[in-house]
Structure formats: C-alpha cells, structure tokens
C-alpha cells in the first residue's frame, strides 16, 4: 500500500467505519476527542514550560494565567473524562452482557463534554478569565481583574461538561439496574447495592459457606463507586458555578454583590471537598478498577484477593469523602482536628488502598507469567509505576510539618500531580486504548509497533523526568502558579522543558500511528451516523 493510501484508508484498509455499531462509534468518538484534547493540553503545558524558562515576547502574563486555568480543565474534563466515559459506557454493558440503557443519552454526554470544553477553552483564550481551578473566594468574582462576561461564558462551558457528566452517571447506574426487554427481572436495588459496595457486610462478615455471590463484577463495581464520586463532584462544581454566575450576572447588570457575604475559608473547604472527589476519589477508584480489569483480561485469570480488592474500593470511596483537609494544612484558621484527622491520617489511608491495588494487580500478573510484553501490558506497568511514585509524594506533602515548606511549590504539581496524571492515569488509559483498539474497530491492525514502543519510552521518560525536575525546583523554593523573570530556576526548567518536549514527541508518534492505523477517512467515518440499527455492542458475525 502506498503512503497516501494508508494515510487515507488505514493500515491494509482493515478499518471499515461502516461496519461499526452505534456503541462502537460512541466509544470511539469519546476516545478520539479525548486524545485530541490531551494534545491541546500537552501543547498548553509546553507553552507554560517555555514561559517558565523565558517569558514569550508578545504573550502577557494574563494570557499565561488564562492558559494555566484552561490547562487542567482541558486535561481532566476534555481529555480524561472523555476517554474514561467512552471506555466505561462501552465496558459496563460489555462486562454485564446487556445493552447500554441509552445510547442517545451517551451521545448527549459526548456532545456536551466536547462542546463544553471548547466553550470554556475559547473564552479563556479570548477573555483571559483566569481564577484557576482553585477558585479561592472571592477571586472568581474579582471583576477588577476579570471580565464578568468572559467568566460567565467560562462557567457556561463548565456547566455543559457537568450536565454531560451527570448524564454519564445516570446512564451507568441505569445500565447496571435496568431490565432489558425480554429479560428475566433484574433485582435493581440489590444490583445497585452490590455495585456501590453497600452490601459489603455480606461478603466480608458472612461465613464462606453462606456467602452469596456478588451480583456485579469487580470492574463494574469500581466504575459504579467512581461514578458516585463523579456525581458528587458534578453537583459541587455545578453549585459553585451557579454561585459565581450570580455574582457575574449581577456585575453585568450593574449591581455589586458583597464579596464578603461568603466566608472564604468555608468556601475553600466546600470547594476542596468537591474537587478532591476527582483527585482523591474517582481517579484512584477508576484507575484501580481499570488495573484490575486489564490484569484479568491480560492474564485470563481471576484477580488475586478479589474480595479484599472490592472492599478496598469501597474504603477508597469513603476515604475520598473525608480527605479534603490536606489541601488546607497551610490555612492557619482551619481547625487543627481537621488538619490532623482528615489532612494527615485519613489521607494516609490512600497509601493503603492504592498500595493494595498496586500489589494485587502485580501479583495477578505474576501469577500468569510468562506473559508477552504487549502494548497494553507495558503501558499498564507504566501506569502502576506512575502511582507508585506519585502517591507517596502526595502523602509526604500531606503532612503538617512538611507542608509548611512544600505547599504551593513545584513539588506539589511535579512529582505528585503531573506524575500521577501523566504516568499513572494517562498510561493506564493508553493501556486500555491499546487493548480496546481491535475490539472497537473490528480488527484494525496497528500501523507501527516501533512507533508504539517509542510512544511508551518517550512518554515514560518524559513524564517522570518532567515531574522530577519540577520537584527539584520546588525543593529549591520555586512556586507553582507564578512566573519567574530572572531565570532563577532555569537549570531545572530547561531540563523539565526537554522532558516536556519528549512528551509532545510521544503524543505525536501515537497520533500519527493512530491516523495511519485508521486512516483519515476512517477517523471521519467514526463521526458519521452508524448504518447499523442495533443496541448490540459488536456487529453480529456473518
């Protein structure tokens, strides 16, 4: 095949978008958009890396902070949410062997998240609304720095994403609980209790001989428990958005609402409680569930200590509701009891829950050795390493003593946040993508294994390296969310920039490989309506 032919029609013309079911198209649309938003987020990150070495002429600091505001939102909502939601909307029915409750609602989730992300990104780009994801009150309503119209459109974009998210959560729980037409009645309440973990006493305290089987599989339970946190987070963010919107609309109408009417510390607690449902909740639960699923699929074996893993997922969900105070260790007015109990000791539980997930996955893999080093296995191992590095880094900073000298430094955002997301989360997602690629595309063949290998190594070294050099700068006093004009930390920033460039190259290699695998026509075809009128996940074999 010629280069042009492969570019247009994919490797060996194996990918035929007309053969895809609506469910396959739904999942692929989410993944393609999620990958593109990852690219946008990576470019934003690289711009900021360059800016930290030398401010870019013609780009003022307002633009820099607007990028810094959009960057995590694009990365988390536009990319991670899209890929995760697409994969889970496919996997829950796949694992439960029944159709998704509503494909239409799934498509609405896709549309709302895609366009919601585009909306807040565009308004950030044009209007420079930049209170950052921290949104410390009353910063979002400080109209001496921000244009209220830009802020209102920004909030609208976030609101669209949140509505799409709520649709996803509703679809997942309905799929778990509903009875498809012609099926024997599904015990909805018992299914939901099993999925969310509120039937855990059954499996832990009952005698082995009297123990009942779990109604839903472990990966579905992980998806359900992560979805509980996703739901709570969406409610918090939506409420917060409405609150800010009220101030913005009032400002646009010429009324100045009293900023001090909302207590800043209470707001900070409220917001971090909600935000931690992502960082310390759904991400850890979804990732652990994905590790378990991938380990079982790769080995073809049952999960080691599956009962403990199921309990740990439930504990993680409860822990995620009570850890937020580690973000407020530097707030002197925060009650000491909250700092110690929630900020330090409950947070330390994450070392146990995530450590268990780490070891259970490794032991399950080990039980099936020798394994072939496939793309899904190597990226899974990379994802495990990412959290192996990032979780202890987080536990260190969630300490009253160490937080006094680490808070808001590059240590937080480097070895903890970026290593957790780029290596832990993203490599786990890549593992799932490589695994699902032939299933979702009805057997498309990867264009180049060499490019996949380069993707793996460049991403792994680039991500860990960038996090490490940011962390070194943080230990030397470099703050996050700021700009240095005198090259104070240039050695570390140049090295972090080189590693960031490696991450960009890794992404470009992956993108090129996927384009050549599916072809441009194939990628466009994913976004065309399916010709198959079926709720089945996969096309029926001829």
């Amino acid at each position, binding site marked *: 095949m010629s280069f042009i032919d492969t570019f247009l029609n994919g490797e060996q013309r194996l990918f035929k978008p007309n053969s895809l079911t609506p469910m396959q198209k739904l999942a692929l649309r989410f993944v393609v958009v999620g990958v593109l938003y990852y690219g946008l987020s990576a470019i934003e990150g690289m711009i900021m890396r360059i800016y930290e070495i030398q401010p870019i002429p013609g780009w003022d600091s307002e633009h820099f902070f607007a990028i810094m505001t959009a960057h995590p939102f694009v990365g988390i909502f536009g990319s991670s949410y899209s890929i995760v939601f697409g994969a889970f909307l496919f996997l829950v029915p796949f694992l439960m062997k029944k159709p998704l409750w509503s494909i239409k609602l799934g498509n609405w989730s896709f549309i709302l998240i895609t366009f919601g992300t585009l909306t807040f990104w565009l308004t950030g780009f044009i209007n420079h609304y930049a209170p950052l994801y921290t949104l410390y009150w009353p910063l979002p309503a400080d109209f001496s720095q921000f244009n209220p119209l830009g802020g209102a459109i920004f909030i609208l974009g976030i609101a669209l994403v949140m509505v799409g998210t709520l649709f996803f959560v509703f679809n997942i729980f309905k799929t778990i609980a509903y009875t498809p037409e012609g099926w024997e009645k599904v015990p909805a309440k018992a299914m939901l209790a099993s999925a969310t973990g509120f039937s855990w006493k059954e499996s832990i305290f009952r005698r082995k001989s009297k123990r009942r089987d779990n109604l839903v599989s472990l990966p579905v339970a992980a998806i359900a428990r992560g979805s509980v946190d996703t739901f709570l987070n969406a409610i918090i963010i939506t409420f917060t958005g409405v609150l800010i919107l009220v101030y913005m609309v009032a400002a646009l109408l010429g009324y100045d609402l009293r900023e001090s009417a909302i207590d800043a510390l209470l707001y900070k607690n409220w917001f971090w409680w909600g935000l931690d449902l992502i960082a310390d909740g759904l991400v850890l639960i979804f990732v652990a569930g994905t590790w378990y699923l991938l380990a079982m699929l790769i080995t073809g074996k049952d999960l080691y200590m599956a009962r403990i893993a199921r309990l740990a997922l439930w504990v993680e969900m409860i822990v995620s509701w009570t850890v937020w105070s580690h973000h407020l260790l530097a707030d002197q007015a925060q009650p000491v009891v909250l700092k110690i109990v929630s900020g330090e000791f409950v947070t330390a539980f994450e070392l146990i829950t995530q450590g268990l997930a780490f070891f259970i996955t490794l032991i399950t893999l080990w039980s099936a050795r*020798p394994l072939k080093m496939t793309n899904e296995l190597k990226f899974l191992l990379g994802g495990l390493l990412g959290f192996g590095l990032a979780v202890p880094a987080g536990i260190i900073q969630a300490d009253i003593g160490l937080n006094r000298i680490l808070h808001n430094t590059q240590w937080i955002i480097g070895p903890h946040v970026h290593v957790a997301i780029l290596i832990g989360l993203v490599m786990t997602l890549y593992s799932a993508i490589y695994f699902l690629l032939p299933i979702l595309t009805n057997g498309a063949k990867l264009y180049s294994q060499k490019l996949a290998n380069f993707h793996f190594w460049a991403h792994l070294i680039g991500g860990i390296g960038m996090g490490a050099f940011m962390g070194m700068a943080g230990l030397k006093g470099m703050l996050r969310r700021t700009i240095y004009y005198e090259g104070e930390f240039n050695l570390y920033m140049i090295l972090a920039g080189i590693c960031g460039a490696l991450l960009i190259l890794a992404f470009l290699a992956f993108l090129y490989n996927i384009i050549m695998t599916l072809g441009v026509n194939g990628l466009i075809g994913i976004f065309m309506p399916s010709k198959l009128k079926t709720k089945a996940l996969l096309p029926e074999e001829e």
Partner: protein
Amino acid sequence: MVDSNLVLNGQTIAYTLYAIVIILLMAWFSYNITRPGKAGVLSNRLFAILVIFLAVLGVSLHIATSMTIPWVPIDLNRGDITPDKTFEITVADHQFHFPEEKMVARVGEIVLFDVKSEDLTYGFGIFRTDKSMVCQMQVVPGHRNDLMWRFEKPGLYTVRSTEYSGPKGHQMIVKDVLEITE
C-alpha cells in the same frame, strides 16, 4: 530549631532513594514477567503483613515528622506561646503593608507574623536570598492568619505571596524586608 533547609534535604534523600527502589523494582518485575519461571502468588499471611506494613508506613510518617520537625509543636501550640516579636501585616489590592520598612528580629527569637487580608486570598512566604523557602502560610480574608517561627540563621529575607490571587499576584515580592540579626 533545625533550619527548614535541613528538613528539605532529608526529605529529598528519602524520596530519591524510594524513587530509585520503586523504579528498579518495576524494571525487575517487567523483565521477569516475560520469562518462564515459577508463577506463584503471595500467601495470605504475607499479604496481611503487606497491608499492615502499608498502614504503619502511612501513619508513622506523620508521627515521625511531628516528633522531629521542630516547628510542628510551635505551630500547633502557638495560641499558648508568647512571641518575642509580633509583626502585624495587612494585604490589600495585591500589596503587602508592613509595620516597619524593615522588620528586624534576632536569631532564636520566636516571631509571630499576623497577616490580614482585606480583599482576596493571598499567600505569605518567607524566602532566603538564594530563593529557597523558609516557610509559608495562606492568607484568607475574614480570618486570622498567624505564622509563628523561630529563625536559626541571620540574614536578609524576602516576603512574597505564595498563593495565586489573579494575574497581578505573581509580582507581590518585597525583597529583604525581614532582617534576622545575631
């Protein structure tokens, strides 16, 4: 009191060693997972030991730091400690307002920085001349923000905001505003 740089150096060494060990462990695992050999699983007893180890590790870090990092008891008991020096500082419109042009204290004195914000959430960080951080806290409007510290080394120190307060916030730097004398 131990200088915060010493604590940072200790943390750097501990985490670097841990990172090297976990990377080597994963490299060893990745190499051997593809090789033929005994494919065993951990016994229940070993697994239980692993769980206990993780629990002890997580909790003991905080107990160890509370017993070894000297500013922790000062911070937690600052309401009961009478400071040798108190500096009342206000922040408004992205500007620090200090009680004196240069705040002066002596090595070993307990100093209280009482910082009040009149508008936004800011940060209050004290930095050495080599840009490394001595300590910091958040400055939240409507609440008392008090940081108690004992300086161990003489010299000039810079104050800067350690929290994002909009694009204007990153310029909130006041060089050499604090002097610690012998």
